[in-house]
């Protein structure tokens, strides 16, 4: 698959001037990964080469093998390390490849690869360092209809915490659908939480003076399988994320 149009990049030859690496963190996503990769292979961007890397977080269902068979570059973590470590590993890979932009697209099919062009376009027009794709930004009340009340309330609470800590409004603080410039990606490569990293990363980025912009994007519900987060874990997630975000604000 597409993945590696950039592998034989010799300078001057067709020279697509910029490299965008799509990081796809995946943990036991055998049923979803092929669809995501197929969609990603169809992504075409102006003056920009697209490379895809799957970061397999110790899957036991053969996600990595499948992705490899489909011709995608796969970074295999030796054991399950959490979404944050997967993304960070992917970012490290991207920086090593010399990426100018890094995009995170989850391996479960929630994020729509076709929207990457929108993220990149907004990144350029607003001269931002990070653009976050939000499933709510276009909706006034934050999309209660598409989720449970508890989740909705938690989402609103996190948005409020982030607003207090950053002075900036975000409607979808837990969204992992993001594009980073190389400079912003370097921060992620340097420090990123191992589990549930999205919210505190917003705080860290804004605090260090990076311009973070949120835009509305189309997102899908999971096609196969359950979300990795159950009820008790959600409570832990909620508390842990608020604590980490507050600490991020005063981190030494």
């Amino acid at each position, binding site marked *: 698959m597409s993945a590696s149009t950039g592998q034989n990049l010799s300078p001057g030859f067709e020279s697509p001037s910029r490299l965008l690496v799509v990081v796809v963190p995946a943990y036991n996503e055998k049923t979803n990964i092929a669809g995501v990769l197929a969609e990603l292979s169809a992504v075409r961007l102006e003056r920009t080469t697209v490379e895809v890397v799957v*970061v397999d977080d110790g899957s036991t269902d053969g996600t990595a093998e499948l992705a490899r068979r489909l011709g995608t*570059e*796969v*970074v*295999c*973590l*030796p*054991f399950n*390390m959490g979404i944050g*470590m997967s993304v*960070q*590993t992917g970012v*490290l*890979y991207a920086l*090593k490849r010399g990426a100018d932009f890094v995009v995170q697209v989850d391996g479960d099919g929630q994020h729509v690869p076709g929207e990457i062009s929108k993220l990149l376009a907004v990144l350029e027009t607003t001269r931002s360092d990070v653009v976050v794709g939000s499933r709510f930004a276009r909706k006034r009340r934050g999309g209660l209809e598409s989720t449970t009340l508890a989740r909705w309330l938690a989402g609103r609470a996190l948005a409020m915490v982030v607003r207090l800590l950053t002075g900036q409004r975000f409607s979808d603080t837990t969204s992992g659908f993001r594009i980073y410039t190389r400079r912003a990606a370097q921060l992620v490569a340097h420090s990123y939480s*191992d589990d549930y990293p999205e919210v505190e990363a917003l705080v860290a980025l804004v605090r260090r003076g990076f311009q973070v912009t949120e835009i509305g994007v189309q997102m899908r519900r999971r096609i196969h399988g359950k979300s990795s987060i159950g009820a008790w874990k959600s409570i832990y997630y909620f508390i842990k994320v608020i604590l980490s975000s507050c600490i991020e604000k005063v981190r030494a």
Partner: protein
Amino acid sequence: MIALAGLQRIELIAVLACGVLAATVFELVRRGKIKEKYSLLWFLTVASLSILSLKREWLHSLASSFGIYYPPSALFLALIFFVIFILIHFSMVLTKLMNQNQKLAQRVALLEVEVLREQNKAR
């Protein structure tokens, strides 16, 4: 030096317990089950508690300065203090270990990709 016979029962038990703890930690270090640097806090604990058990005046003045009526209770307070100190130290060590472990795993994963790429090129 106070004669052992002059000790209250609780103080005697404390001294004996300290002796057992010190011997256990020492043996574990000797067998390589505990690193020397992680045994130091334990020996510091044992030494402090032993001194407080044997030097009754010190225990009493510690107790009265904390407003504790029954001096041997101050021993427990000191013990809890050391145990909490050691546990926090463990949390720090654990965090450091986890960070190193994560970095190592990431580097291994990235190196594996490069090795596979080189192998494919060679073929």
